[in-house]
């Protein structure tokens, strides 16, 4: 049956909206990255980088909230469950890193950013895998 080949209008519209809204956000991210990549940025450049990064972070949150609101009840449940698993993983990892830092095994300042980046990545991968698994 052609069930798995056909795409519904809901998914198509959601993907189109995410692309249209995501494009300026990605551009802003690239701008923030470019502003912060200088070896010795002056005060103006530094302030510009801070402003661009703040706006970029807020727009990523706005993008995620919009995508979440657009999702139907099943996809929203998948997102929430994946988010909960990722949040739990980040909590356990932070707790472990703090314990290891107390024992002078790892440097907390180096480990924490990696954990904080891995959290949302785990969330997105889990949500994607769960929606792909049962096609």
């Amino acid at each position, binding site marked *: 049956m052609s069930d798995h080949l056909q795409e*519904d*209008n809901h998914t198509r519209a959601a993907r189109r909206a995410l692309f249209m809204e995501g494009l300026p956000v990605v551009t802003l991210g690239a701008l923030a990255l470019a502003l912060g990549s200088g070896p010795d940025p002056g005060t103006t450049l530094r302030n510009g980088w801070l402003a661009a990064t703040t706006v970029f972070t807020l727009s990523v949150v706005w993008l995620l909230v919009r995508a979440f609101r657009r999702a139907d*009840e099943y996809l929203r449940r998948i997102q929430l469950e994946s988010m909960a698993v990722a949040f739990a993983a980040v909590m356990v990892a932070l707790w472990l890193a703090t314990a290891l830092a107390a024992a002078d095994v790892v440097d907390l300042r180096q480990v924490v950013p990696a954990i904080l980046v891995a959290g949302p990545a785990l969330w997105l991968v889990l949500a994607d895998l769960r929606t792909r698994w049962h096609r």
Partner: protein
Amino acid sequence: MKNRLRELRAARHWSQADLADRCGVSRQAINAVETERHDPSLPLAFTLADVFELTIEQVFLPDRPSVDR
């Protein structure tokens, strides 16, 4: 929750995407309801029943022992 979505859909020659479009949800949601991995909310259950022009009881079957009255 057990349901007759696949059977009703097949009778009308609708794909999961067709039914999803009629209900305003994603195809994954229809697939999840059909394979009993997701119990639909009451509004979605009513929409599904409306699309097939049936009542909820004719589309969804409770998978619990019958209650003695």
